[in-house]
C-alpha cells in the first residue's frame, strides 16, 4: 500500500515530468501525438474537476444548513438557485421540443436557462463589479495619502496615469497622455518583467523539485 501511496505517484511524476519537458523540443509526429492524447486526458480531468467542485460546494452548504450555522439561509438560497439552474440547463424544453443541453438559445428562441443567465447572472455580476467603482473612490479618498516619500511618488504616478487614460485628462493636461504611456511602457513594464522573470525561475525550480520528488506536499498527508 505504501508503494501505491508514495512511490507510485512519485514515479509517475518523474517519468511524465521528464517526458513532457523533453516533448516540447521534439517535433516528431509521435511526440506530437503523445501531446494530443495527454492534453485530451487533461481536458477530461478538467471536466471531472468541475463535477468535484460542484459536489464539494453542495456538501459544504449542506453541513451549514444541517448545523444551522450563521447565514445558513444563504446556503438554502444557493441550493434552490443551483437546483433550478441545473434543471433548467440540463432538462427538456417542452416549448422548444428538445433537450436544452446548457444552451442559452435554441434556434433563436431563449431557453429558461438562457433567461436565468441573461436576466439574473449578467446583471448581478455587472452590478457587483460596478459597485467596485464607488468603493474604490471612497477608499482612495480615505487612504491614498502622501504619508511618505514613496507614497507621494505613487500618488503622483497614479494621478498622471489616471489623467492620461481619459480624453478629459489629456484635454486638461496635454502631456499626461504621453507621460502615462511612458510610465506604463517603461517603468511598469520593466518592473513587471523583473517580477515575471523571478516568478518564472521560481516555477522552474519548483517544477524540478516536484519532478525529482524533493517537493511532495502535493501528495497530501494521510496514513502511510
Amino acid at each position: 500500500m505504501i508503494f501505491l501511496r508514495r512511490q507510485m505517484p512519485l514515479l509517475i511524476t518523474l517519468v511524465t515530468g521528464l517526458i513532457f519537458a523533453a516533448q516540447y523540443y521534439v517535433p516528431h509526429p509521435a511526440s506530437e501525438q503523445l501531446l494530443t492524447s495527454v492534453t485530451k486526458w487533461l481536458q477530461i480531468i478538467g471536466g471531472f474537476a468541475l463535477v468535484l467542485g460542484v459536489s464539494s460546494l453542495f456538501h459544504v452548504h449542506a453541513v451549514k444548513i444541517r448545523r444551522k450555522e450563521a447565514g445558513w439561509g444563504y446556503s438554502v438560497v444557493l441550493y434552490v438557485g443551483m437546483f433550478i439552474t441545473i434543471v433548467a440547463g440540463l432538462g427538456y424544453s417542452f416549448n422548444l421540443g428538445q433537450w436544452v443541453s446548457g444552451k442559452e438559445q435554441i434556434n433563436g428562441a431563449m431557453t429558461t436557462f438562457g433567461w436565468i443567465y441573461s436576466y439574473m447572472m449578467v446583471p448581478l455580476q455587472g452590478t457587483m463589479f460596478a459597485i467596485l467603482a464607488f468603493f474604490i473612490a471612497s477608499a482612495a479618498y480615505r487612504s491614498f495619502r502622501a504619508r511618505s516619500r514613496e507614497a507621494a511618488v505613487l500618488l503622483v504616478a497614479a494621478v498622471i496615469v489616471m489623467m492620461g487614460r481619459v480624453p478629459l485628462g489629456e484635454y486638461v493636461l496635454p502631456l499626461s497622455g504621453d507621460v502615462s504611456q511612458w510610465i506604463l511602457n517603461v517603468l511598469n513594464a520593466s518592473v513587471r518583467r523583473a517580477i515575471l522573470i523571478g516568478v518564472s525561475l521560481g516555477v522552474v525550480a519548483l517544477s524540478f523539485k516536484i519532478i525529482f520528488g524533493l517537493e511532495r506536499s502535493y501528495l497530501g498527508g494521510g496514513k502511510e
Partner: protein
Amino acid sequence: MSFAERMLKIDRRIIFLIIGLCTLLPLLYPVGLPIKISQEVRSVYDYIESLPEESVFLLSLDFDPASKPELHPQAIALLRHAFRKNLRVIVMTLWVSGTGMADQVVSQVAHEMGKASGEGYVFLGWSPGAGSVIINMGQDLYTTFPTDYYGKPTKNLAVLKGVQNLRDVNYAVSLAAGNPGVEAWYLYGKDKYKFELGGGCTGVIAPGLYPLLRSGQINGLIGGLRGAAEYESLINQKGRAIAGMDAQSVTHVAIIVLVMMCNVFYLSMRKASQQQGQARL
C-alpha cells in the same frame, strides 16, 4: 474637531453620490471629447487591416458578465472590423460563465453584418481545460471541438475549410478579464504554434500585460474602455465605449480631485499637529 478632520471623516455616501452623478450626467449629456489613438490599439487595427480576405481570425472571448462593460464593446468593434474585412471568424471562450454572452455578441454582430453561422463565422463555445484546450486546438481543432456551439459538426463547415489547427490561424485576439486569457494564449498557443497574437483586456489587468507587448509576444493591446473607444474611432463606428468615455473621464477627474482634497486636508492636519508639538516643547 477641525474642518480638515471633519472633511477627512466625510460620510462615504457623499462620495458615492458624487461618483454616481459623475457617471450619470455625462451619459445623459455627452460632450464627445476627441480620443487620441494609442500605438498598441492601432497595431491590432493595422494587423487586421493588413490581412487579405478569407484569412482566418480567431477571437477568444475570455471574460464573464462582470467585465461586460469594458470587453463587450471591444468584442463588438473587433467583430465588426473582421466581418467588414470578410475574414473567416472563429469565436470561442475559455470562460464557461461567458459562453452565453459570447454567443449573444457574435450572433448580434454577425446578423448586423449579414454573416451566416458556418459560412462567415463559427462559434465554438466553451470546452474545459483552459491551457489544455489551446494545446489541443494547436494539435487538432476538430478533436477539441468536434461540433460548434449549436451542435453542427465542425469538420463540414465552410468557414473552417483548410483549417486543421492553430497553425492555420492568421491572427488571434484574446479579450481577457484574467486567467485564462492573453497570457495562456501566448504560453500554450503562440509560443508553440506560431500565429500572430493580439490582446484586449480590462483596465485593471492592462499594466500586467505590458511586458508581453514590449517584448513583441503580443503585437497590440486594447486596454479597457479607453481601448475599446479607440478601436471604435478607428473603425468609424461609434458605440458604447465612446459613449462611456465621457463618464469615465469625469469619474477619473472626480477621483483625482477627491484624492487631492484628502491630501490637502491630511497635510494641513499634520502641519497643525507638528506646530502644536513644537509649541508644547
